[in-house]
C-alpha cells in the first residue's frame, strides 16, 4: 500500500461527512464552538436612541437571554451537572431522618438536637424528597431532558429517511479496512455487495462506484425510548404519590374488617384521593399463625407469619379464602392488603363492685420487643363501685408469652410463642377522661384523674397471673379474671394508582438502555474499482460510533461473505503484482 497517496490527500471534511449524523447526540459546545457566546454578553446589539430603540433593544436582549438559557439547559454538559446534583441532593435524605419515612425518628431527632433541628427545618432537610430545592433539580433535569429528546427525535426521523453518507475518498483511513483483488468486474462485485449487505439488514445503496451501508439504528431508537421512558416513570411516580391512600387496621382472630373510613385505626388520605374512593370489600381473619426458630443461632427469630382470611368484594360478594403472608399481600382491585405485625390480646373478665360483669373480652397489647413482651391497658368505662356509684376501672401492665420463671427476675418474654403466658397488671379507679372528647392512645392509660389501688402494706397493687387466675381489688371494688389470650394481626391497606405505568416505564427504560448500550451503530462502505489490466480492487471499510473490537470482526465476516462473488486472486499473484 505504498502507492495509495497518489489518489491525493484526503480532506478531513471528507471523513467528517462520513462520520456525520452517526448519532443524534448533540455536538458538544466546548468542542464545536469554543468561541461561542459562553459568557452572557449583550444580545441586544446596537441600541438606537429613543423609546422605540430601547424597546427593540430590550426585546432582543430578552430573547437572546432566553435562547441562551435554553441552549445551556439543554446541553449535555448541563444535563451532566444536573444529574450529578441530583445524586448529591439525594444524600442528606438517607442520613437525616425523614418525615415521610419515620415521623417518630424525626421527633426524637428534634428533641436531641435543639440547635440543629431549626436549621434543618429551614433547609427542608426532614423532607428532602419533596423539598423545593430537590424538586428544582429534578424539574430542571426533566426540562433539560425534554429539550433534548424533542430535537433528537426529529433528527432521528430525518436520519431514518436519509441515505447513509457516500463513501469517503480514502477508505484506508477509516478505523477498519481490508482490501483484495479479484478478476470479477466491478459492477458485478458492487451488485453482490449490495445484495449481501441488504441480506444482513444493512440499509445499503450504490452510488459513485461504491456501496454505502449503515446498520444499528435501533441504538438511537433505544436511547430515545430510554429517555422517554424516564418521563413515563416520573409521571407514574407523581400520580402514585398524589392518588395514594393508606391506613392501618388491627384485627382480632375471628373478627372482620370492611373497607370504609370508620373501620380504620388510622388513615392517611392522598392529596387527591380520600375516603370516597375506597374500593368496597371486606375480610375476616380466620386464623393467624406465627412460627419462630426454636433452636439454632437465631433462636426466637421469625420463620413464618400467615393470616388466613375470608374476603369478599362489594357489599356481599362471593366469599373467597386466601392467606396473607409477608411478601404476599392480598390484592382486591387497586387495593392491597399487607400483613404488618401481630401480637397477643389477653382475654379478661372484669367484675365491678356490684358483682356485675363490666367487661369481658380480649384486649390487644402491643409488642415491645422481638420476643413479644407486650404492653397495654384495659379500660373499663361501665363499672360501679360497691355502693352502685359510677367508678371507672383501669388496668395497665404487660403480657409475656413465655415467662422466664420465678427466679429469673425479668418480666421480659423469653420466646415469642405462648409457652408460659403470664399477665402482669396494676389497677386504677377514677375518671378515665374518655368523656372529655380528647383522643387517647388506647394502649396507654391517662392516669391524671385515676387513683392506683394500694396493697395492704401500702405499695401499689400489682399482680402476676397465669391463665385462669384472678386479681381481687381491695375493699370489694371488684376483680379481674385472666381467662386466656387470643392473637391479633395488623394490616396495612393501601390503594395506589399508576403502579402499572411505573412498571411499564421501568421495563421500557431497561429495554431502551439495552438497545442503546449493546447495539453498535456502524457504517460500512464497499468500493470496487477496475484498473487497467482488468483486475478489480475491492475495498471494505467500517466506521462505528466508538472504536469497537467487533467492527473489524464484522468487516472480516463481510469480506468472507463477499469472497464467493469476488474471489480473491491468490496471494502469490497479488504479491507479484505489487512488487
Amino acid at each position, binding site marked *: 500500500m505504498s502507492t495509495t497517496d497518489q489518489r491525493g490527500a484526503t480532506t478531513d471534511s471528507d471523513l467528517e461527512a462520513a462520520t456525520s449524523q452517526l448519532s443524534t447526540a448533540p455536538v458538544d459546545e466546548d468542542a464545536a464552538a469554543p468561541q461561542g457566546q459562553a459568557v452572557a454578553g449583550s444580545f441586544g446589539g446596537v441600541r438606537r436612541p429613543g423609546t422605540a430603540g430601547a424597546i427593540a433593544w430590550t426585546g432582543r436582549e430578552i430573547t437572546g437571554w432566553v435562547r441562551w438559557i435554553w441552549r445551556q439547559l439543554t446541553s449535555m454538559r448541563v444535563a451532566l451537572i444536573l444529574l450529578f446534583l441530583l*445524586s448529591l441532593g439525594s444524600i442528606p435524605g438517607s442520613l437525616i431522618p425523614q418525615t415521610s419515612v419515620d415521623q417518630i425518628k424525626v421527633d426524637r431527632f428534634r428533641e436531641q438536637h435543639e440547635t440543629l433541628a431549626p436549621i434543618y427545618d429551614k433547609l427542608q432537610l426532614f423532607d428532602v424528597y419533596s423539598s423545593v430545592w430537590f424538586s428544582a433539580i429534578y424539574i430542571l433535569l426533566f426540562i433539560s431532558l425534554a429539550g433534548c429528546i424533542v430535537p433528537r427525535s426529529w433528527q432521528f426521523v430525518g436520519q431514518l429517511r436519509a441515505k447513509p453518507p457516500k463513501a469517503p475518498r480514502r477508505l484506508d483511513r477509516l478505523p477498519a479496512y481490508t482490501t483484495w483483488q479479484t478478476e470479477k468486474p466491478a459492477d458485478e462485485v458492487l451488485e453482490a455487495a449490495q445484495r449481501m449487505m441488504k441480506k444482513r439488514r444493512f440499509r445499503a445503496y450504490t452510488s459513485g462506484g461504491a456501496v454505502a451501508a449503515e446498520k444499528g439504528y435501533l441504538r438511537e431508537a433505544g436511547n430515545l425510548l430510554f429517555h422517554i421512558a424516564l418521563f413515563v416513570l416520573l409521571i407514574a411516580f407523581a400520580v402514585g404519590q398524589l392518588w395514594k391512600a393508606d391506613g392501618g387496621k388491627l384485627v382480632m382472630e375471628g373478627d372482620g374488617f370492611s373497607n370504609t373510613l370508620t373501620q380504620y385505626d388510622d388513615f392517611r388520605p392522598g392529596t387527591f384521593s380520600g375516603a370516597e374512593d375506597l374500593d368496597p370489600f371486606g375480610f375476616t381473619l380466620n386464623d393467624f399463625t406465627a412460627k419462630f*426458630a426454636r433452636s439454632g443461632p437465631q433462636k426466637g427469630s421469625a420463620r413464618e407469619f400467615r393470616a388466613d382470611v375470608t374476603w369478599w368484594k362489594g357489599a356481599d360478594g362471593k366469599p373467597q379464602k386466601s392467606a396473607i403472608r409477608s411478601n404476599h399481600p392480598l390484592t382486591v382491585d387497586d387495593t392491597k392488603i399487607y400483613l404488618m405485625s401481630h401480637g397477643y390480646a389477653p382475654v379478661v373478665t372484669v367484675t365491678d363492685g356490684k358483682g356485675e360483669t363490666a367487661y369481658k373480652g380480649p384486649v390487644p397489647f402491643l409488642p415491645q420487643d422481638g420476643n413479644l413482651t407486650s404492653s397495654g391497658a384495659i379500660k373499663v368505662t361501665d363499672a360501679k363501685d360497691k355502693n352502685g356509684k359510677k367508678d371507672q376501672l383501669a388496668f395497665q401492665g404487660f403480657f409475656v408469652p413465655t415467662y422466664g420463671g420465678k427466679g429469673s427476675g425479668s418480666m421480659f418474654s423469653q420466646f415469642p410463642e405462648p409457652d408460659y403466658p403470664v399477665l402482669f397488671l396494676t389497677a386504677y379507679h377514677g375518671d378515665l377522661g374518655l368523656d372529655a372528647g380528647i383522643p387517647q392512645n388506647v394502649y396507654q392509660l391517662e392516669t391524671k384523674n385515676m387513683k392506683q389501688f394500694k396493697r395492704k402494706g401500702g405499695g401499689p397493687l400489682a399482680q402476676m397471673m397465669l391463665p385462669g387466675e384472678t386479681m381481687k381489688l381491695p375493699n370489694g371494688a371488684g376483680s379481674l379474671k385472666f381467662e386466656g389470650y387470643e392473637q391479633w394481626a395488623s394490616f396495612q391497606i393501601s390503594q395506589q394508582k399508576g403502579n402499572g405505568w411505573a412498571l411499564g416505564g421501568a421495563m421500557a427504560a431497561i429495554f431502551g438502555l439495552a438497545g442503546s448500550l449493546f447495539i453498535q451503530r456502524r457504517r460500512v462502505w464497499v468500493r470496487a474499482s477496475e484498473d487497467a489490466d482488468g483486475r478489480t480492487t475491492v475495498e471494505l471499510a467500517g466506521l462505528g460510533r466508538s472504536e469497537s473490537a467487533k467492527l473489524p470482526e464484522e468487516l472480516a465476516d463481510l469480506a468472507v461473505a463477499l469472497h464467493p462473488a469476488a474471489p480473491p486472486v491468490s496471494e502469490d499473484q497479488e504479491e507479484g503484482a505489487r512488487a
Partner: protein
Amino acid sequence: MNIAAATNENLANISNYLVYSAMAVYVLAFLAHIAEWVFGSRSKVGKTAAALTAADAAPADSVKVAVKQAGGTAVLERPKVVTRSAAGTRDVPDGPGAAAGDEQGDLYGRFAISLTVLAFLLHFAGVFTRGWSVQRAPWGNMYEFSTTFSMVAVGAYLIFLAAKKNVRWMGLPLITTVLLDLGLAVTVLYTESDQLVPALDSYWLWIHVSLAITCGALFYLGAVATILYLFRDRFEAKVADPSGPQPGSFAKSVLSRMPAAASLDKFAYRVNAAVFPFWTFTIVAGAIWAESAWGRYWGWDPKEVWSFITWVVYACYLHARATAGWKGRKAAYLAIVAFLCFLFNYYGVNMFVDGLHSYSGV
C-alpha cells in the same frame, strides 16, 4: 421444602472449611503472582518497556491487528483487517504483562492462574454448601453477600481470561482484595448459617440479590481497571514529555508492564456500560419486591436512596463519555465515585444507617 427445616449443621461446617481452604489457596495464588512480578522486573523486556512506550510509540498508521483464523471453507483464509485508532488518542502499545517475557515469571504467572481456578472451585463449593445447608439462596446476610461477591468477581475474571481478554494484569490486585474481602467476611461479618426471616423469604431474593451481587462484582472489575487507567495515563503522559518530571523506577517497572491507558479505559467503559442495564433491572426488581413486601415500590429508604445515587452517578459517567470535554480522566473519576457509592450502599448502609434493609446479621 419446609421453611423451618432444621439447619444442617454438618453442611454449614463443611462450607466453612471450604471457604478457609479457598483462602489458603488464594494466598498461594497471591504469592505466585508476587513471584511473577518479581521475576518480571529483572526481565530485559520489562526494563526496556518504558523506553519502548516512549520512543517507539507506534505511529497511528502502523498499528495492525491481523485477524487470521481458518475461514468457513478450508481454502479461504480470513482476510486481514487493518485497524487504526481514533484521532487524538495516544497510540501506545500494551505493556508486556507482569512476567514481561521472563520465562520463569511467566511460569509463576500460569501457576498463579491455575491456583486461582482451584481456589475459585473451593470458593464456589463453599458458597454452594452454605446455601444447601439451609435449603435457600446463600445470600441472606453480609457474610453470605461478601463471600458470594468475591466469588463472582473471581469467576468473572476467569471467564474474561478464558475469553482471551487482556485481563491477566488484574490477577494480583484482584486476589489481594478477594483475600481482604474473605478475611473480613470470616471475622467481622461472620454469621451462623440459618433460615431466613419471612421478610426475605421470596423468590425476588434469588433475582434481586443475586443480580445486585453480580453487578457489584463486575462494577468492581471495572473500577480496578479505572484506577489503573488513572495511574497508567499519568505515567504515559509523563513519559511522553521527557522534559517534565519522570516516573520513579518502581512506578516505571510496574506500570510499563501494564496495558496501555487506552486499553484499560476501553475495558472499564465496556464493563460499566454492559452492567448498567442490569443494575437498572436490579433496582426495578427491588422496587417490585418492595411493593409486595412493604406496600410501596419506592419509599426513599436509605438502601433505595443509595442504589438510586449509584445509578445516577453511573448515568453521569455514561453521559460524560458521550461529551467531548469530559472523556478520559474526568469520566474515570466519575466511575470511581459511582463505585464508591455502590460500596457505601453495601457496607455503609447495612452497618451504619438503619432502615428497612437491616439484615446485615452483624
